């Protein structure tokens, strides 16, 4: 019998893993380099705070920035309270029977539904049935629906991680069940909940499909920000500048600038999530 020398085996094992890592990093860096190198020249406070002019061939991206900020706020206002409350109910109050198991499985499945389906659903429900029209409100609620399953799932995961001994500690000093949840369980789970919320919202902020039919506008040349009015949003603005504009070559730098701003916004939001997780680990030890 001949054996391969252990050294070669271990080099192959270790090498495959390293190669995969390098490959992933390579593509990531290429994408980042592409966006940064071509968008950096446009990036300035002026670019962010000037409205687009001359059919979007000049000016900045202030209108879509405002739209995305407001949109994300509506999404947050709708999805955080309902999502977190739902997760608390499912994890702390609901009995573990077939009904709650079905509900939980359905919620998990919903987070896998393609976002365009949410877009069409939002069009049918908010725009047409509830007569909100294509508007900031309709798009925000649609994105809220999209975010709910993620927020519920991540919140529940954060709650499950709180050991039962923590709940017993509060009950044993005479806290009611609600006080136990309010004062001990949720505060302990807060970093996990916040991480989930921020990551979900940063994902929602970058979505295009759900706002396509529910309120995002091609170009708005007047004051915006009304709940019942259409709006411009960064991801849609980018999509449109790269593929739909009549003078694509001319607006290319603006498109890269928009992409860079969008990446920076998402990066900053993720950074917040990392900070929460860091704080969480520090408190744990």
């Amino acid at each position, binding site marked *: 019998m001949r054996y391969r020398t252990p050294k070669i085996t271990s080099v192959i094992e270790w090498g495959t893993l390293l190669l995969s890592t390098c490959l992933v990093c390579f593509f990531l860096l290429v994408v980042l380099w592409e966006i940064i190198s071509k968008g950096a020249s446009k990036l300035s406070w002026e670019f962010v705070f000037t409205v687009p002019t001359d059919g979007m061939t000049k000016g900045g991206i202030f209108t879509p920035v405002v739209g995305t900020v407001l949109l994300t706020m509506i999404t947050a206002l709708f999805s955080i309270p309902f999502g977190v409350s739902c997760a608390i109910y499912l994890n702390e109050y609901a009995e573990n029977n077939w009904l709650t198991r079905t509900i939980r499985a359905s919620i998990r499945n919903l987070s896998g539904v393609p976002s365009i389906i949410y877009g069409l659903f939002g069009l049918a429900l908010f725009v047409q049935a509830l007569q909100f029209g294509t508007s900031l409100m309709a798009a925000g609620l649609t994105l809220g629906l999209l975010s709910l399953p993620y927020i519920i799932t991540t919140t529940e995961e954060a709650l499950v991680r709180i050991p039962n001994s923590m709940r017993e500690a509060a009950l044993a000093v*005479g*806290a009611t069940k609600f006080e136990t949840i309010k004062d001990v369980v949720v505060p302990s789970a807060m970093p996990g909940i916040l991480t989930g919320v921020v990551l979900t919202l940063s994902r929602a902020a970058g979505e295009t499909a759900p706002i396509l039919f529910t309120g995002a506008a091609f170009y708005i040349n007047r004051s915006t920000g009304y709940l019942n009015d259409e709006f411009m949003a960064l991801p849609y603005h980018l999509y449109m500048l790269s593929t739909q504009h009549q003078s694509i070559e001319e607006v290319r730098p603006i498109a890269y600038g928009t992409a860079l701003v969008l990446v920076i916004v998402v990066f900053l939001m993720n950074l917040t999530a990392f900070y929460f997780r860091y704080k969480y680990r520090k408190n744990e030890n």
Partner: protein
Amino acid sequence: MRTKLSTESLNLSFGTKQVLKNITVSFNEHEIAALIGPSGCGKSTLLRTFNRMHDLFPDAHIDGRLKLEELDLYDKTIPVTEIRKRIGMVFQKANPFPKSIYENIAYGLRINNLPHNKDVVEKALREAFLWEEVKDDLKMPATRLSGGQQQRLCIARAVALRPEVILMDEPCSALDPVSTLKIEELITHLKEKYTIVIVTHNMQQAQRIADKTVFMYLGEIKEEGATQDIFNFPKNEVTANYIKGQFG
């Protein structure tokens, strides 16, 4: 000696599995009683019936009588929070709240609408022999204390509510010998004011601190009596084998 805590024909089952069988036992005021027995014999389950910790599990079924003096512990007209205020509990693994040391004591006082100022907190910490070690760091997160200190903080948290009974579920099983001795000393000291029921796996510990020892086996009480009698002259063969360490 007055009887403080008692059960009469207590049966408890989780679903179809009967865990406690016909338990009749009583604990005297200002005494330390130790519950001993092999793992799974039901001693922790018995302990947790007294502050109604089984309320959390819908499939736990309890019948029989449990009394704190003359008060029926399972009387539906009495809020369970009132029972838990009068019967405190210290758990196997120290479980301080992820809050500051001060807040750990103040929290229980606040939710029970008791005064919660620095003096009350200091008094509780002194009673748990912890004050000198933490008096300068009351704002520090309690999770940064050592295991033994955390357990004493949990005792202080229970003591702060001025309960009548303190239940302890193997409070030293996760601690080193020095911290264990410190807690035993504390428990012995606390019996002047409180009635203490402690579950322990440690035979020496039972002999060092308990006035009364109850030996449980397969959900039943096999033997009970003064600690000296149980350990020196066990009447039951199972008891004798267990305390000699022939099974556990």
